[in-house]
């Protein structure tokens, strides 16, 4: 598509403000950690498995330390000291810790350097495992190659991973490049990862190591069959965000839905908790070479796509800065936006075209992810296919990187096997039919489209500078995103936020930041 004439200066101002916003927010949380972060650390140090009542060891250990007011030093410290004392398996140590068999007061003294060394060598093992699965991905990609952009992203959400696998294979054979397993409705509010083989999901499927493996295997198999690497997506969100990052990284997921604010706004998770969790999680995802998908599309389900288009752009700038500060490379930052404008609006297509093209230009190095119409989809599944056709057209016209296929049945149910089939046919045809239209047409300077884009950009700049002034947490409590307000003290999971002691240590974070350059 011919380029839109956008003010470089304005874009610069926006980025600059967003950088300030991210920096200030991170400064605020600097001195804090969360139970979720500590659980993730323990998992990487080798604490796996569950108690006989199915609670993950990482949870019981961290809860135990929290109840003893010991968590402020970091779970790693106590775990490693306890281990050194006995030298059993990680699980034995964990068991002894929670059984109260470890007298934290009188643990044999270890030299700080010595302790640090042991923590780091365990941490190194943990990261090696992640690095290994990263290189497996790289090898397979090199060998098989990937689909052509816009990549076709399809969701499965039967609630049963084995049924999901069947449908994912069918979707891949039909042309899917990325399969996202939608997560069980209630999971993001669970403060632990449900054990393997556990309950039937609703509105989605349980996300845990066992289920990740089932789908990874299915996709590897079908990737071979098709000679095309099929990417796997799940959610790095909710109260277990950092642990999801660990599991995803270990089980070679390729993409994770991960947003710096979604949990706060749409799941009413405490904002301090979320900002800490996302910062650490993203560093892990960066290390694992995974792509994140942010969730700005969601804003347009609660606020109007025409009125609030600038909030999406503003949020993308913020998500970008948070991501960079966690060490994600631009190529790993999949910013989200969506075709959610009201079909009743005249020239709605022009406005979506303006937004999509603007986002593409402003975040040129990011694999932007474009989401389909959902809010204005209805029970008219025939017309739904038409709405999706125009969405498909904008996507290929503006050359988006990741294209989430809309379903004709969006308003009715999580996709049936033929819903995906019909959507793939829709996309095949539209992409093919207008493949090079973008190259063949030029925007009329000062036309409706260009004007719309500049207006949205200007409003985003104003919004970002306003936020930079008041601080992001304040902005959220004033419902500046999605028209939903959340307070700094409100929301779920605040009790899991802990102030770090002076000698707090998180060996994983240390290595991640020291070695950021590498990733």
């Amino acid at each position, binding site marked *: 598509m011919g380029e839109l004439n956008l003010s470089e200066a304005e874009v610069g101002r926006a980025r600059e403000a967003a950088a300030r916003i991210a920096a200030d927010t991170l400064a605020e949380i600097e001195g804090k950690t969360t139970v979720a972060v500590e659980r993730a650390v323990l998992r990487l140090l080798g604490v796996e498995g569950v108690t006989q009542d199915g609670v993950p060891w990482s949870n019981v250990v961290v809860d135990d330390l929290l109840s003893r007011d010991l968590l402020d030093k970091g779970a790693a410290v106590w775990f490693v000291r306890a281990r050194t004392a006995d030298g059993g398996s990680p699980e034995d140590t964990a068991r002894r810790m929670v059984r109260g068999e470890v007298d934290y007061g009188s643990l044999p003294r270890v030299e700080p350097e010595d302790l640090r060394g042991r923590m780091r060598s365990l941490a190194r093992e943990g990261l090696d495992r992640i690095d290994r699965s990263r290189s497996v991905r790289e090898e397979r990609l090199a060998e098989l190659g990937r689909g052509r952009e816009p990549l076709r992203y399809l969701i499965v*959400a039967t*609630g049963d991973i084995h049924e999901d696998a*069947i449908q994912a*294979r*069918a979707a891949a*054979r*039909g042309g899917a490049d990325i399969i996202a397993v939608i997560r069980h*409705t*209630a999971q993001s*509010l669970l403060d632990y990862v449900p054990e393997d083989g556990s309950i*039937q999901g*609703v*509105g989605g499927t349980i996300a845990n190591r066992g289920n990740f493996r089932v789908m990874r295997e299915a996709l590897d198999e079908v990737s071979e069959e098709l000679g095309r690497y099929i990417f796997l997506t799940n959610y790095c969100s909710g109260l277990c965000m950092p642990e999801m990052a660990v599991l995803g990284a270990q089980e070679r997921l390729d993409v994770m839905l991960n947003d710096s604010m979604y949990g706060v706004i*749409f*799941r*009413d998770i405490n904002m301090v908790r979320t900002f800490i969790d996302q910062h650490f999680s993203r560093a892990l995802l960066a290390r694992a070479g995974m792509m994140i998908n942010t969730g700005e599309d969601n804003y347009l*389900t*609660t606020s109007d796509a025409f009125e609030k288009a600038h909030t999406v752009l503003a949020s993308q700038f913020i998500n970008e800065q948070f991501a960079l500060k966690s060490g994600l490379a631009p190529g790993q930052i999949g910013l989200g936006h969506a075709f959610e404008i009201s079909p009743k609006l005249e020239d709605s297509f022009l406005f979506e075209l303006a937004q999509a093209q603007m986002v593409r230009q402003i975040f040129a190095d990011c694999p932007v992810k474009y989401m389909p119409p959902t809010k204005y989809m209805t*029970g008219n599944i025939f017309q739904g296919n038409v709405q999706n056709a125009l969405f498909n057209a904008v996507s290929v016209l503006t050359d988006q990187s990741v294209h989430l296929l809309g379903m004709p049945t969006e*308003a009715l*149910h*999580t996709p*049936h*096997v*033929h819903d995906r*089939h*019909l959507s793939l046919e829709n996309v095949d045809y539209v992409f093919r039919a207008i493949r090079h239209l973008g190259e063949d047409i030029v925007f009329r300077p000062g036309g409706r489209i260009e004007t719309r884009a500049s207006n949205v950009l200007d409003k985003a700049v104003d919004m970002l500078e306003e936020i930079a002034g008041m601080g992001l947490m304040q902005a959220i409590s004033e419902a500046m995103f999605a*028209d939903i307000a959340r307070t700094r003290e409100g929301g779920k999971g605040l009790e899991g936020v802990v102030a770090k002691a002076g000698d707090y240590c998180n060996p994983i974070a240390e290595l991640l930041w020291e070695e950021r350059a590498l990733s």
Partner: protein
Amino acid sequence: MNEHVDLVTAYGDTRGDGAVQLSFTLPVTSGEKARQAALILAAKMGLEEPRVVLMDPIDPTFTYFILYGRTRESLDFSSIQVHEAAYEIMAPEEINRFIRETFGRKLVVIGACIGSDAHTVGIDAIMNMKGYDMHKGLESYPEIRALNLGAQVPCETLVARAMEEKADAVLVSQVVTQKNAHLKNFTRLIEILEAEGIAERMVLIVGGPQVTLELAKELGYDAGFGRGTYPEHVASFLVQELAGRKTKRG
């Protein structure tokens, strides 16, 4: 079929032709045998002259079909009984006046999206100031005190709050219906309300895109509202229902 005035059936391009379109997937490999299977299934559904107009292999194990046929069935339209919630729709001003005159106090309405359902747009559309589609929500009614607890509210929390606020009505939303999640949550709530012995005291209203009045009644609620509901619909029903109960109690 054409003769009887009130016998109706599907219509394609001629009265009584019974034209029906059908689509489904069969977990079989595409081919002549699969096509026959689709025709048999359609025949079992009572379709005459069933025609497979599309047999599309989704993959080696699934085949998608689109069919047309003529249904033999018809029904007597005049005999259909709809139990529509018996109330007239009033304008917001009317409703407020009615409240002042009938109850002489503000009504307390408490709402939430229960269970793990985070779809608040629906309940917000009914309760919040902003409302829906230019129709302002209950919050904007001077004579109504509207408390919207929002998303993912545990049944217990809702009930406790309703009791402490002495709510006149409880409004519950459920949007996620997969695996009948909504039925489970609605049932759970009514059980708790009954356990607390307050089910009778309050007007219990449910809503959601897949909620119907029949469903609501079956589950023991006073009313159910589906797609396209406006706040005044709910308020109209509510005030008329409460007025009715008042007179009954005498």
